């Protein structure tokens, strides 16, 4: 069910990422102050936005899970956090490179955006250990949803509070864009935001499809009465759909 339309989506995503890269590298003007290094902005900022939106979306999916008790919502929330964590690591790396180029240090403490992002990442880094430490799949899903909702609410609150700490060095991206980004840069930025969004959705769909297919295969094997030689299901941080009645 998640595989439907995945091929056209992947093609569109690949084309749009390629187009964005080409536009960022060859069409957008070089920054007067930072020069070529500024190009990393087209990757870094959309990745950061998508990471945080992904975490909040995972919180909303977790609410749906607690309301409906449908384990598929837990799976969606898990996959959203998984993809966002990967994006988040990329954000920290690209951010460090940018900080080194722009401010001369790999890490800058007096920047609220950077610090809150690290804090959010440290919180979400405990999501998989938490799941792994609970054996019963039903309770694992429930506790993980409680975590995902709490952490999802923490994301915007944390950003608001840490920003109150006085120093500002981080470029205020979104206000800059309406303010003083030249036209071409603005176009490329929105293009990058669109293609990274597509990338996030595509990766999410791929992982959902993979998890679904694995569950279906396991169920089919069981229906055929085939004794699988796999070891009995290992304890796992990933949700499994085996305890669902029917896998559609």
């Amino acid at each position: 069910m998640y595989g439907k339309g995945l091929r056209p989506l992947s093609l569109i995503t690949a084309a749009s990422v390629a187009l964005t890269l080409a536009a960022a590298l060859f069409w957008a003007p070089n920054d007067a102050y930072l020069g070529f290094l500024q190009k990393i902005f087209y990757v870094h900022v959309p990745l950061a936005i998508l990471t945080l939106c992904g975490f909040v979306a995972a919180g909303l999916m977790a609410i749906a899970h607690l309301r409906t008790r449908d384990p598929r919502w837990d799976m969606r929330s898990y996959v959203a956090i998984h993809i966002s964590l990967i994006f988040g690591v990329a954000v920290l790396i690209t951010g460090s490179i940018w900080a080194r180029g722009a401010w001369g240090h790999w890490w800058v403490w007096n920047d609220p955006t950077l610090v809150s992002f690290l804090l959010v990442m440290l919180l979400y880094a405990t999501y998989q250990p938490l799941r792994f430490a609970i054996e019963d799949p039903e309770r694992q899903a429930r506790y993980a949803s409680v975590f995902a909702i709490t952490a999802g609410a923490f994301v915007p609150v944390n950003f608001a509070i840490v920003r109150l700490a006085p120093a500002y060095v981080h470029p205020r991206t979104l206000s800059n864009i309406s303010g003083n980004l030249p036209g071409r840069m603005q176009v490329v930025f929105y293009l990058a935001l669109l293609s990274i969004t597509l990338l996030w959705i595509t990766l999410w769909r791929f992982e959902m499809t993979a998890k679904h297919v694995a569950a279906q295969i396991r169920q089919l094997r069981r229906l055929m009465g085939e004794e699988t030689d796999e070891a009995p299901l290992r304890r796992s941080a990933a949700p499994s759909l085996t305890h669902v009645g029917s896998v559609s």
Partner: protein
Amino acid sequence: MSRPRSASVVLALLRAQLRLELRTFESLPAMCLFSVTAFLLFHFGLDVDSLSGNLASGVLWVTLLLAALLAINRVYVADAEQGGFDAFVLSPAERSTLLLAKTLVLLIYLAAVELVAVPAFAILLLEPSLWQAMPSLLGALVLGNIGIAVIGALVGALAVRTQARDLLGPLVSLPLLVPVLLGVARWTAPLFDAPRANAVALRWPLVLALYDAVFGLIAFALFDFLLED
């Protein structure tokens, strides 16, 4: 059977937990001892005899936060190991009364620890007099304690029935507590300045109150789901 009044349930749970603590002394002495030891660690680690301003505020609050973790880790252990959760879920009481009772327990623990730790801090490390900072410091202690207690009561319940509870409790609660630390530490830093700055920003009390309220609501909304089996 009619549903018992929530206030009397909270009171009964609170009394039970405090009696347990008075019989076993599992948390409070450890927390007090830990705080005083931590001041010693800071003395030797930083190689200073007295602290003021930012540094004083940071040392005091980091110590209190880490001491609170000891209680957060232990506050549900008896319920998880001796069947307290099962008995509570079978009773007709509202589930959120347990959250409220544990929050109050943590508040009492924190207040008791601060009765020891704050004077000890003033004697051992603090350079300016404690009295001039007192009124605002009390406010910071109250709002900070509420934040720590609310988050501790929620995360403690989340972590206690996992296989790595001693690890997961601190790992999950510390990032959530960083905004509390930021608020109280920035709030009290000017109070500990040697020539005292008079203007206390209204910003930090407001931020703390808001954060406490937000996480109070989240904990209240989500706690029921942690008790369902």
